[in-house]
């Protein structure tokens, strides 16, 4: 037990990867074995992160459970892991969603071994980003996560997967290029990548002095944008979002779940973990620009979503819309760092990350459920399905309401907090965003209507095309999500407490 206690983070981080390697050596062809093994392996980090959650002391400032190992001595990078309230909630989100996604992908029958391995590697990649306290390690995991995702889309995706996966890869790598260069710059300047050290020393640089033939201020501005663009692509912010609908639409169901549930959070997490502490001045200066982009994402995301006829694309654009709120909160916090409003906005943003992870994953899964049965995602081909599949219909409506921001469910809490915090700080943008919120309702209701209500499409009612009800396994995937959605909606304090303390201490 002592070992587990002292190596908790590295266990959480590496158990999936090790499990993936073990799968490699399992006898091939045993699809069932692969599935259950992968699921079992992904539950270990979940249990461990529960342990982490409960032994985490929210009131203690700084990072906890820190671990540090030699990694790349020559350039001063160490495998430095640690969590605070911010990363802890993200870790929990990841470890919850991964087993669910694996459970959701039991219907995959093609190349199961490779699929499960990639999924577990993906989990390690995502967790690594959240756990890293070393800039280079952060970047390493940031990039590593791309590869499994690329292959998940490329191998198990639908018709247009080649285009979508390459677009996803190139967009994200292209976005990371600036990040890579900026990381190198920091490494060159300070000879270390340790985040805690970098926070201090980077900010201590006299902004009047010269660096690389330019003033420190200019350099910092450029570096700020290098970081910001990398994260903005991932979030994704308008106008860097065009990869997302393609990737989501083509990805396999579980891939979309993770993509929307966790991968998008990596970008937002990057803003919180790196940009706000490293570039407080620049972030404040450019907060207006960020807020503009965020508002654009909210509004255009909602409009675009409304215009879709493809169910999955509709959900995909809704992610753009929802993640816009996260960035709006961040922008507000950056503009008025330290104020009470800023804290509220940040709380909302972080909670929104968590919530969106739950609801988006659920929505994508539900789209997948119906797609598996009908082999179409075209909204025009559905209609009036509620009588055929009442349980499914109920779940879909429930999840959609969370996404819509119905009071009593989780989405309301976080969006309210964001808006409440941002309104005094960025009035115009917030007002426009709230208009966007209106359209959120519109497109979600449109989706529900097209699928469940209206005249029944008889095609699905009889014969070989008869729609079957959601099965137990699929319900099992949804139950934990729904429980959490409801729980946070009714009693958000358990998680807000952790987030709030972290926000207060950090910013």
């Amino acid at each position, binding site marked *: 037990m002592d070992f587990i206690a002292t190596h908790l983070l590295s266990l959480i981080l590496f158990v999936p990867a090790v499990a993936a390697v073990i799968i490699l050596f399992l006898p091939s062809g045993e699809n069932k074995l692969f599935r259950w093994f992968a699921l079992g392996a992904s539950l270990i980090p979940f249990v461990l992160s529960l342990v982490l959650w409960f032994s985490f002391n929210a009131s203690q400032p700084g990072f906890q459970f820190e671990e540090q190992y030699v990694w790349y001595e*020559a350039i001063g990078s160490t495998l430095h892991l640690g969590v605070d309230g911010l990363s802890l909630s993200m870790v929990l989100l990841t470890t919850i969603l991964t087993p669910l996604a694996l459970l959701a992908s039991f219907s995959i029958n093609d190349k199961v071994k490779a699929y499960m391995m990639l999924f577990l590697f993906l989990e390690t990649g995502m967790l690594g980003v959240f756990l890293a306290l070393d800039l280079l390690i952060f970047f390493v995991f*940031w990039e590593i996560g*791309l*590869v499994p995702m690329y292959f998940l889309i490329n191998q198990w995706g639908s018709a247009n997967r080649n285009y979508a996966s390459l677009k996803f890869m190139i967009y994200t790598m292209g976005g990371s290029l600036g990040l890579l260069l900026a990381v190198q710059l920091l*490494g060159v300047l300070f000879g270390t990548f340790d985040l805690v050290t970098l926070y201090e020393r980077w900010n201590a640089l006299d902004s009047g002095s010269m660096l690389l033939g330019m003033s420190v201020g200019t350099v910092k501005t450029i570096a700020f944008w290098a970081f910001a663009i990398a994260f903005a692509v991932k979030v994704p912010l308008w106008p860097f979002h065009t990869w997302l609908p393609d990737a989501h639409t083509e990805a396999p169901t579980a891939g979309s779940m993770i993509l929307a549930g966790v991968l998008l959070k990596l970008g937002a997490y990057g803003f919180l973990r790196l940009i706000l502490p490293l570039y407080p001045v620049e972030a404040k200066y450019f907060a207006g620009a960020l807020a503009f982009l965020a508002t654009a994402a909210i509004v255009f995301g909602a409009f675009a979503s409304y215009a879709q006829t493809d169910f999955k694309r509709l959900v995909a654009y809704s992610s753009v819309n929802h993640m816009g709120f996260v960035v709006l909160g961040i922008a507000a916090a950056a503009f008025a760092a330290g104020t009470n409003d800023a804290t509220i906005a940040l709380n909302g943003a972080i909670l929104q990350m968590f919530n969106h992870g739950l609801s988006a994953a659920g929505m994508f899964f539900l789209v997948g459920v119906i797609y598996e049965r009908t082999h179409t995602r075209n909204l025009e081909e559905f209609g009036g399905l509620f009588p055929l599949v009442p349980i499914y219909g109920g779940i879909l409506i429930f999840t959609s309401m969370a996404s819509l921001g119905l009071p009593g469910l989780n989405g309301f809490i976080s969006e309210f907090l964001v808006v409440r915090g941002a309104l005094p700080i960025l009035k115009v943008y917030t007002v426009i965003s709230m208009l966007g919120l209106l359209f959120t309702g519109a497109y979600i209701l449109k989706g529900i209507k097209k699928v469940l209500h209206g005249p029944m499409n008889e095609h699905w009612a009889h014969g070989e095309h008869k729609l079957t009800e959601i099965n137990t396994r699929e319900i099992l995937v949804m139950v934990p999500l729904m429980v959490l959605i409801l729980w946070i909606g009714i009693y958000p304090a358990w998680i807000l407490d952790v987030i709030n303390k972290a926000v207060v201490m950090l910013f």
Partner: protein
Amino acid sequence: MNFPVLSIITFIPMVAAAIMLLMPAQRKNETRAVALAAATLALILSIWVYFNYDQATAGYQFIERYNWLPALGISLYFGVDGMSTPLVMLTGVVMFTGVLISWGDDDKHVMAGIQDRPREFFAFLFILASGVFGVFVSLDLFMLFFFYEIAVFPMYLLIAIWGWVQTREYAAMKLTLYLFIGSVVSLVGVLAMFWVQYQNTGLLTFDMLQMEKAGFSQAFQYIWFLPVFLGFAVLGGIWPFHNWSPDGHVAAPTAVSMFHAGVLMKLGAFAALRVGVMLLPEGAKQWSWLIMIFAGVAVVYGAYIAFVQMDLKYMIGFSSVSHMGLVMLGFSTLNRAGLTGAGVQMFSHGVMTALFFAITGMIYDRSHTRQIPELGGMSKIMPFATVGFIIGGLVSMGMPGFSGFVAEFPIFMGVWRVQWLVAVIASISIIITAAYIMRNIRQVFFGDMPAKLEGHMTDVTILDKVAITTLCLLMIIIGLFPSFMVPMVEKGVENILRLLGGA
């Protein structure tokens, strides 16, 4: 004098070549067995050297010295430092895997490996390997040059005889002439250094450790650095003298491409470093800007040209130009990070490109085409090779977790210190590389298999799998645990920095 391990490593291939040439020509399998035995032995010994190199004491180790021609101060003087030890191991690895994948099979209709005169093939290949080992371990300038030339000429035969019918004559001759021109240009510089050091110190010696102290005047170094460095760097594929290399890669048979891109190009870079930078440090400082420009162009231009290639081997060939450009870029920084990265990159690229060529060869042997649009769906037939190629591709893209990242990151950091603009421009190549690697993986391995290939394809052999696994493991180990190799290279770099005068 301990166990003379370096000279054993160096001469094993040569001796094996002699043995093979004395065997009857029709004994193909026995010949192959001799080759494999020799390669395995060389590999084991080179690994042994790697792990027994004492990093605490650093400097040159496993030193052996036999007077060869005292009248001119030529001696058979062997020793390895942190820079060359990984390269010795690299050579062992490439040699071993090269033999495995060119094993050939006389019974089946599958034209894999080498069936035509394997005896001569392995003999020439091993003579080349001896030359390569010799360059990496020589501390005597004359011997270094001697082995350098030995490594160059078998290339002609290997490409011309066993190469791709359509271009082999042209490519082989082009390659040989380029390399020969480069090497003789360096030779003039080497001889000039030899005499000037004699004038300065009165010592008649080719000992490089002595020559480091020769006190070459600044003017001398300014004049001679470029011919010496570029002469060797031709073999390293430096732009604008890289033209021979893709042609050579394409025309060469698989194992030779592996050797060529995997090891021979390192030979050029290594010699350029050891003779050019280390013996003429002032010249290096003077001209590093020019090398940096050349290398920067190579990195981006090579990647771009690779992007537009339709022939799989040309693509890899140009990507080698790009990656070797990174090595040169590392050299041109003349600082710790850059040089360390360049050292690791030499190893990483060697392994990666050997893997690429091995797998391309496996595909070509079965499909008889390398045109990317004519290939597809290989993952269904050869899943093992697919995974190998993907890993290679990730290394090539500089994906973290693989050796390419470990190597490229410090190079870029080194460049940052010197000229940030070059780092920014060179980083464009990362995106281009990612694009063409991903595009080609998708087309070749995952696309639909063209009808005319259906039924003709077979999975790779078990020997191929051993080779692929070996190469992949190395890249992953270095990627995950940089301390496997980086501290060793750093020890070598320290010595170079000392010669460059502090820093």
